[in-house]
């Protein structure tokens, strides 16, 4: 599991470069997220626009990544499409995260 990360406008932007976050990859995703989030700005944005499939284990791994952040830091999501958006909506996890349509919208968000 590889993640691309960079800092932009005071945000640690992490891009998933796999097309799936599923049970076979969830543990590696969690570990990769911990590394990618470490030592960055308080706000982390996870870009899921390249992900076409996520299952319950993948959802759990995204929740785990949020819980792994130090107090005062925050994980937002962007770029949810197709079945990924549907799974977040059905489980109501879309009410737990701030979700933006794309990277540009996430980076320009000024609501803290």
């Amino acid at each position, binding site marked *: 599991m590889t993640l691309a990360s960079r800092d932009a406008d005071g945000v640690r932007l992490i891009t998933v470069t796999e097309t799936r976050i*599923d049970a076979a990859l969830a543990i590696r995703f969690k570990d990769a997220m911990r590394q990618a989030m470490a030592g960055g700005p308080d706000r982390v944005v996870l870009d899921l626009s390249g992900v076409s499939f996520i299952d*319950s*284990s993948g959802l759990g*791994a995204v929740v785990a990544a949020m819980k792994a952040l130090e107090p005062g830091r925050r994980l937002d999501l962007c770029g949810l499409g197709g079945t990924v958006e549907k799974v977040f909506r059905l489980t109501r996890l879309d009410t*737990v995260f701030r979700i933006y349509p794309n990277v540009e919208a996430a980076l320009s968000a000024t609501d803290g």
Partner: protein
Amino acid sequence: MLGSLVCRAGRGTGRVGFCLSFPATLGAVADALAHVDSRLGDMCVGPDLRGDVAIALGEVLNNVAEHACAGLAGARVTLRGGLSGQELWVEICDPGRPFPGGGLPAGQAVDLSLPVDALPEGGFGWFLIRSLTSGLEYRRQNGLNRLTLRFAP
């Protein structure tokens, strides 16, 4: 992993639209879902319904690999599916342990009103399966689990 898939039926074969068999392991799930998606495309099933099948079937196959068949060397899953009228059905058959209590999990929605530290990192699977299917049938027969998922068009 595709080499381990066995396909016995294609389109136009009547009630069964596809049939395949593969190892009951997490590593085989993605290829199996891709194979089913491709067959459903051949059967002119639209992308929204194919997405629902991938989510629900993926959860079932993960559970088969991680729970029912965990530690059972050489166990294989057999999938069959097709259209019955307007309804799409998929049957998952595995030689693993039966469901605890003999019935399907309730799949209640996860409580998200908790503080972030206490949010659950699992328990979404059966809720998704129940949300996306129009019917579920489970029977234990000759040491096999047979679970049928039904999807309304």
